[in-house]
């Protein structure tokens, strides 16, 4: 059952514009090897500063030099003109509410959202590349004039995906209904 997933992951990573590739076919450490998920919703309210809602640990040495992390989140929020900001950061520490690489998206007059962040190591265990910041957690596929977001988090040590929120009006709410992180290891 795992073979199609391994093949799909290897294929996805091997078609990037004539770059160097690795083939994980048959490897015991193949694609989608680790899943970390929340277990129930968490709601932010009453605080207008960026606040950590959950930290998903990326265990040391699980990504590899060329692996990928995907973070999928389902959100609900007060539907109003006030900003509700989704903020996701890759950090060396759990619970970080600042630092790069970070990705932010603002919600206003909608009630729910689904986001995807894909960030990967780029030839080294301490060099990350992610799609540009902006509203792109909600449009993770497509084109943009913005540059890529880079990071230097050491993934040979534990690293963290910190999923944070900000509500501009303290009486409003932002709820992280569900979050799941999948690591696709590539050496």
């Amino acid at each position, binding site marked *: *059952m*795992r073979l*199609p*997933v391994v093949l799909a992951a290897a294929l996805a990573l091997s078609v990037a514009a004539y770059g160097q590739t690795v083939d994980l076919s048959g490897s015991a450490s193949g*694609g*989608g*090897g*680790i*899943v*970390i*998920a*929340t*277990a*129930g*919703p*968490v*709601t*932010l*309210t*009453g*605080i207008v500063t960026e*606040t*950590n*809602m*959950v*930290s*998903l*640990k990326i*265990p040391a040495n699980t990504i590899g030099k060329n692996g990928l992390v995907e973070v*999928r989140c*389902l*959100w*609900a929020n007060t*539907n109003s003109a006030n900003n509700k900001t989704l903020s996701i950061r890759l950090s060396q520490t759990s619970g970080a509410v600042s630092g790069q690489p970070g990705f932010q998206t603002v*919600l206003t*007059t*909608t*009630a*729910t*959202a*689904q*986001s*995807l962040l894909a960030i990967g190591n780029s030839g080294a265990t301490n060099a990350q590349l992610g799609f540009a910041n902006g509203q792109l*957690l*909600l*449009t*993770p*596929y497509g084109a943009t004039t913005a540059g890529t977001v880079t990071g230097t988090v050491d993934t040979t040590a534990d690293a963290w995906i910190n999923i944070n929120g900000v509500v501009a009006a*303290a009486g409003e709410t932002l709820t*992280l*209904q*569900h*979050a*799941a992180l*999948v*690591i696709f290891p590539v050496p």
Partner: protein
Amino acid sequence: MMRRALIAAVLLVSAPALAQLVTFPGVGGGGGGVVVSTTGPVNLTGTTAETNLASLRIPANSMGKNGAVEIKALWSYTNSANVKTLQPRFTSTAGATSGGVLWPNAAPTTTASFQMLLILHNNNATNSQTAFANAGGSPFASTASAIATSSLDTTADTFINLNGALALSTETLTLQRATATVFYAP
């Protein structure tokens, strides 16, 4: 002291409880462990009734309490002004053409192909599901719609039914391929 007490009280009232986590290393069947896929295209023509084109079985207990299912489907159809309806349904029976609507249908007209991604989560219970209530062509976005919910028992087999309907029966709708990947989380 008063200020500290005040800050502590504010934090107590307003700080969110951190979400509970489950970690499931992939050794011996972790992430993406179950893949269910069609094996070739299937055409719909000659009827205007909603018709099941594929039933992707989510095996009993494969999701766990906090797992997710991703469904990816590629469709093609007659490029015309007539509506072609692409309707996913999450049900306890294979082939269902009613009930189980978590995602609104897609209704393309003057285009030729459509790719959708649907994500279904268990919500800390094997019989509680949530999903983003957008059509599968824009899976990552925000919407004024509420989150879709259902309460199917995933300790028994469940099914993602991919259905189609034609407004004009002489036209064609094809489900080129579809895959469901189950990400188990206890």
